[in-house]
């Protein structure tokens, strides 16, 4: 009796999860097949769920255009540099808040840092543009976005790293001091390795944010430097609306975060459950 009950629940769950998977994957599927359709087929009133013919030449059309390739590479550079900076600075700041709360300003400081993420970004769009334009002379470069995204990623990195460092056993650091390591050396030798899983998940979150950001990129860059989110609308602006190429480009743009997530998933799960289960 219990056995049958269990089987029923398992089956229901399986069906539910299966449906959910199909629903959430469908947009990607549709994006993928649209990318290889001809423009005439895309514009048909009745949508087709399998292309009449796979036009592999669409790939060529997208990537023979250097600006499309450059956009992906620029985004890659900006997201990676920003992530490295955010994780590095966030680790140091988070460590200070976790270990020396009084000297670092305590809970109020930690909360203030986090609160930087609470306002609607659009509220600071123009002031930010003015600030970067004045200081850097021009905003249309990699550096401006690398720095600007710190506004959003630093609070996240600082806050999460603070939580991870709080859970890292303090005694290990003390043992390192007694071994003769200065606080900074002890930090790199002993403390940092304890929080690597957490750091990986922070890096992933930062990287995905920077990879997907549109609002500020649209304002700050565009000619010298373009990122994928502002490159994408280009396919459907103007006289020719190339939905198929837009779909193909965005499908390619979605791949790196997905691959990264799959590679780092192990860390992600461990990192975000850090402090929940202590081993």
């Amino acid at each position: 009796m219990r056995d049958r009950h269990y089987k029923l629940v398992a089956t229901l769950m399986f069906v539910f999860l299966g449906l959910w998977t199909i629903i959430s994957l469908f947009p990607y599927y549709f994006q993928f097949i649209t990318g290889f359709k001809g423009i005439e087929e895309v514009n048909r009133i009745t949508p087709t769920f399998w292309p009449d013919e796979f036009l592999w030449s669409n790939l060529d059309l997208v990537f023979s255009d250097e600006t499309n390739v450059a956009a992906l590479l620029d985004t890659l550079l900006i997201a990676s540099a920003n992530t490295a900076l955010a994780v590095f600075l966030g680790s140091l700041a988070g460590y200070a808040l976790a270990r020396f709360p009084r000297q670092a300003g305590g809970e109020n400081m930690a909360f203030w840092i986090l609160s930087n993420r609470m306002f609607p970004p659009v509220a600071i769009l123009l002031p930010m543009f003015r600030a970067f334009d004045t200081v850097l002379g021009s905003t249309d470069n990699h550096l401006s976005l690398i720095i600007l995204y710190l506004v959003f990623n630093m609070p996240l990195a600082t806050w999460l790293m603070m939580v991870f460092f709080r859970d890292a056993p303090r005694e290990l650091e003390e043992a390192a001091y007694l071994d003769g390591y200065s606080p900074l050396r002890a930090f790199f030798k002993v403390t940092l390795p304890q929080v690597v899983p957490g750091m990986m998940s922070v890096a992933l979150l930062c990287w995905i944010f920077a990879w997907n950001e549109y609002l500020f990129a649209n304002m700050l860059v565009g000619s010298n430097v373009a990122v994928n989110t502002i490159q994408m609308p280009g396919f459907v602006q103007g006289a020719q609306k190339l939905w198929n190429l837009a779909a193909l480009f965005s499908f390619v743009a979605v791949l790196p975060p997905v691959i990264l997530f799959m590679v780092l998933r192990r860390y992600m799960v461990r990192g975000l459950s850090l402090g929940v289960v202590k081993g």
Partner: protein
Amino acid sequence: MAQLQIEGLCKGWDFPVIDQMNLTVEEGEFFVVVGPSGIGKTTLLRLIAGLESPNEGRIILGGNDISRLPPYKRPVAMTFESYALYPHLSVFENIASPLRARRLPKREIEQRVMDVARLLKIDQLITRRPAEVSGGQKQRTALGRTLVADPEVFLLDEPISHLDAKIRHELRAQFHTLEALRRVANIYVTHDYAEALSLGDRIGVMGQGGLVQVGTAHEVFEKPQTLFVAEHLGQPSINILDCELSTEDGVLIACHRESSLTLPVAQAHAQQLKRGNASHVSYGIRPQYITVIADGEAVCDSLHVVDCTVSLFEPLGTYAILMAETAGATITALSSPEHRYEQGESIRLGIDTAEAFFFDAVTGKNLVL
């Protein structure tokens, strides 16, 4: 090579934990601090190591005041109660850590780590991670990490308390034989009195605010200065009876306040007690000085015999603990495990009154030292 001196050390948070402590530990001495948990034993070690800073007082090592030095500049090594091994590094790297900190050449590090590992019999495990070795091996790794550092002071915080009995005994023997420990000042903290008595050249019993008594194992066990020391050392712990002293027919006797039990006071003690004019005392007698007297057995004069009823009998292999009621008082005795006593059984216990202690009921001071 140096002597460790502690002068007027004070440390407290909401309340004083260590109050005006003075202590000198000689080079090569194994000093054991024993005391109940939460009394401040670990705090003392952390002060010496520099992980806490004292509110007042000085810590002097070989003539140099190290009180203001940060921990990484003190020639001090410490093992932690939790071992504090670096989980991401191999046993080898854990032991090598203090040498890496000094940036010694690779060959020297390898040599010294392997020497220590062989000494501690963990040379087969050096490639494993701490999570992959047993509790005893973890402890040896932690000990290896402190040995390899070649410090001037060793601080050992409950190093073997969390191991099972067999390994504990084995490692206790190791502390007796390690040459390296004989060249430096050692402070060993434990809550286990047996460890303390076994290992300590001198033993400091720690109570509220600091060391209550310092002396050899013999001194602290046989001549406790206070009731606290007597209660803390010994297993099962000493019988304490709240007594009133009075004179009957010219002989001093101790009357238990909560029952009708009366015990004669040995001649040697009586004189001292009379001189001190004591009346209200805590009468202490260790369980090993109370023996079961078999039927028909001749009783020697020094034993005071009382009739009892057995209330609990615990055979523990080599000895047994016997708790018995007499005239409303409960006393604990040691007996042989071979004869099993049933609950409610009537027996006779002989109390060796010459071995009794008398503590002032208010101050806890030993009145017959």
